[in-house]
């Protein structure tokens, strides 16, 4: 479902080698043309509205698997490879990158890493950042560099992979990424339970978190969100289990005893459907707070936002749809008071021009980020304005 490119560009380029990419960046740098690096364009709607860029740099020709060492559980792939295709390859050896970014069928590895894009599995396996062990990239002044390496444990020099993962292509264009892998779990299963209210959901989640159970993901659907996914109209908690066969069975039975309205989820595609963003709503918000504040934030959201709400209670994240601008400000204020943040993940461009998409609240952090950008992209040609 790749949308039409939601930004305006003068030209599209598709470099075929690092040399070509470096030449392109240098030339753009010399005459101050701005660049948007992109994979398949699944996340171009993220970030601030920018009137126009000069060049869209498609990384799709960088789609090779560079090295795969199943015995070491490491893989190195070029940034334009599709995330799902890499996963397919790894699956042949019973391995995977433990992450479930949205749009994984279109998204490229570079795009997923550059946006540190994740799904509910982040709860059990950490952000995709944690799986990255090395990178190669071309910076805003044309410098080609590498960060990290190809072994699973490495503290040589600064771990710049942490900086680049989630930098939205504003510090450099990723050409190659190395990951550490995990064996695929022996068994996986999703169970669900229904509740009368969000506080009851939160109670159940707290109980699970204080128990020996090791779910890898927790997703909550509001009654309307459950209904539109073909489920009963009720607050629904999905619990994803991934373990040995015995471990999954034991956890399932423990949950059956604890949770009201317990049921097995109808097939794995329900899980997929929970990760897709709902395209019927023009505006998607992503609010994140410390887990303890979830119920309070949810109460605020219920008052204001549209009724279809999806949350990841294990990591303190809520996706909601906002009807209008003043509501965003109000909700953001609430999230920030709770020690969290709220960003506008998608919105029509006209809308975006009137709102601060990210909502940075820590001025000192922002200052450091701007200085980092100035050092690695001195002329501010990489994705200027998208982040700040």
């Amino acid at each position, binding site marked *: 479902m790749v949308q039409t490119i939601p930004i305006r560009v003068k030209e599209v380029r598709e470099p075929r080698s690092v040399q070509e990419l470096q030449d392109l960046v240098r030339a753009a740098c010399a005459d101050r043309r701005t660049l948007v690096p992109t994979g398949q364009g699944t996340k171009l709607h993220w970030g601030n509205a920018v009137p126009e860029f000069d060049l869209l740099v498609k990384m799709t020709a960088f789609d090779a698997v560079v090295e795969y060492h199943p015995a070491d559980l490491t893989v190195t792939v070029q940034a334009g490879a599709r995330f799902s295709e890499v996963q397919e390859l790894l699956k042949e050896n019973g391995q995977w990158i433990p992450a479930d970014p949205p749009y994984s069928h279109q998204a490229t590895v570079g795009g997923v890493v550059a946006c540190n894009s994740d799904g509910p599995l982040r709860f059990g396996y950490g952000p995709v950042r944690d799986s990255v062990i090395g990178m190669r990239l071309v910076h805003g002044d044309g410098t080609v560099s590498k960060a990290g390496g190809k072994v699973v*444990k490495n503290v040589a020099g600064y*771990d710049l992979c942490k900086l680049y993962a989630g930098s939205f292509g504003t510090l450099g264009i990723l050409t190659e990424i190395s990951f550490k892998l995990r064996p695929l779990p022996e068994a996986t299963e999703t169970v669900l339970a229904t509740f009368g209210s969000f506080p009851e959901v939160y109670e159940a989640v707290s109980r699970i978190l204080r128990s020996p159970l090791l779910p890898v993901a927790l997703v909550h659907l509001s009654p309307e969100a459950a209904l539109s996914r073909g489920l009963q109209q009720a607050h629904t908690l999905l619990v994803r289990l991934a373990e040995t066969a015995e471990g999954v069975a034991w956890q399932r039975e423990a949950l059956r005893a604890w949770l009201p309205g317990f049921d097995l989820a109808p097939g794995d595609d329900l899980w997929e459907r929970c990760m897709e963003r709902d395209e019927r709503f023009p505006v998607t918000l992503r609010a994140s707070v410390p887990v*303890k504040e979830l119920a309070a934030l949810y109460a605020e959201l219920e008052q204001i936002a549209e009724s279809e709400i999806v949350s990841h209670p294990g990591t303190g994240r809520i996706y909601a749809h906002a009807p209008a601008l003043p509501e965003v400000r109000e909700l953001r204020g609430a999230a920030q008071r709770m020690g969290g943040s709220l960003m506008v993940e998608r919105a029509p461009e006209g809308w975006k021009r009137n709102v601060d998409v990210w909502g940075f609240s820590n001025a*000192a952090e922002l200052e450091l980020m701007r200085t980092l950008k100035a050092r690695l992209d*001195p002329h501010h040609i990489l994705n200027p304005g998208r982040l700040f």
Partner: protein
Amino acid sequence: MDRQLIRQLKQIVGERYVLSDPAEMYVYECDGLTLHRKPPSLVVLPETAQQISEIVQLAEGRSIAYLARGAGTGLSGGALAVQGGLILQMSRMNRILEIDLDNRCVTVEPCVVNLDVSKAVLPHGFYFAPDPSSQMASTIGGNIAENSGGPHTLKYGTTVNHVLGLDVVLSGGRIVQLGGKSSDRLGYDLVGLFVGSEGTFGIVTKAILRLSPIPQKVKTFLAAYSSVREASQTVSDIIGAGIVPAALEMLDRLTIQAVEDSVYAAGYPRDAEAVLLVELDGLEAGMERLAERIVALCRQNAATEIRIARSNEEREKLWAGRKKAFGAMGRLMPGLYVQDAVIPRSSLPELMPKINAIAAGHGIAVANVFHAGDGNLHPNLLYDGQDPEQIQRVLQAVEEIMKLCVDAGGSITGEHGVGFEKKDFMPMIFSPEDLDIMGRVKSVFNPTGLCNPQKIFPTSKSCGESGIPYKIQYKTLDGKTEEIFRI
């Protein structure tokens, strides 16, 4: 030393907390890497971020180098005051500030000892996962600076995977808060970047740490072998079978002997050439079957003995031998040089004998005790520190081992950091461009270069031994020059 400076420092931290007696400085002349020594000019013991901010401003105003020091157990000379200057000994900042179980985190000051974090939350069913073998002494500030790992890194990752937020003091005395209790951050991941910066970005004054639930079941066993190769092959086979143990550690003959001769005697079989310590943790259901598979793989590789810990005491004993192995080696020789290279884990069986051969070739005894599961080696080269000729041979062996590991696709350090010790090995794995980018990043946090100078970056031929921070001029494409300090 400058009397005025001492007076000003005393005004900031209090009379008792500035040490300037040259005799006292020797306590601070080195960290766990005793090969390099240099006493600082002054030691200050601050109690608050505000005091640190003032100290930093004072030091920078006078172009004096400064660095933070935790327990001084570092193994790469990270806390070495290369240029003399000021050491901020963090000992007074050792409080656990908040235990927040609902959010599964704790907030601590930097000089809290690693193990004390776990001790404080164990009664509530949680622990702090990073477990360097030095965890009874090393501090959270040091762990964060080095991105320390430990035996359980194999399954649970290193320190960086368990830090949510940091309060830091940066150049100019800026007090900055990075990250927080919410697991999502906006923009660049500054916390992730700061962890592992080896004390060269600034000084950590507070940390929010993620807690992990205590696993329902733990199963620890020991397998003994009559060759290192067979033990190494078992490691590869376990990983190859798709099993992620919580820990997978190896000790070789010399280490076993040292441990068994010490007060930490763990009952390791003395006649074994190598033992593996394997630990599974997590859900009880299914663990027995995994354990049986591992035992089968051990047998398949001709393990001479397999012993399963039947009680908590037995388990702790098996681990005590591992965690105290460094200490026990002190019995073998006065000097100990711990290497920390990493190799792709499948190359263990091939490279282990080669490493031992290199040491033997230089007439140096080597005892191996290491994180086999993730390929993080620790050949311990034993020497007599009084004998300069022996030290030379050790250094030669170290360099050759490093080359071997790098050629195999590895890294020069897995957890101890580059520090002062390995900075001239950096060009083995990083190009001048890679280092230039790191230098630019450092300059954002530490533009004066006075915070822990002469670490990580290779010695510049031009500045030689002078020890003075030097600037590199970096030309932007439009001909403008930007200046960056590189140390």
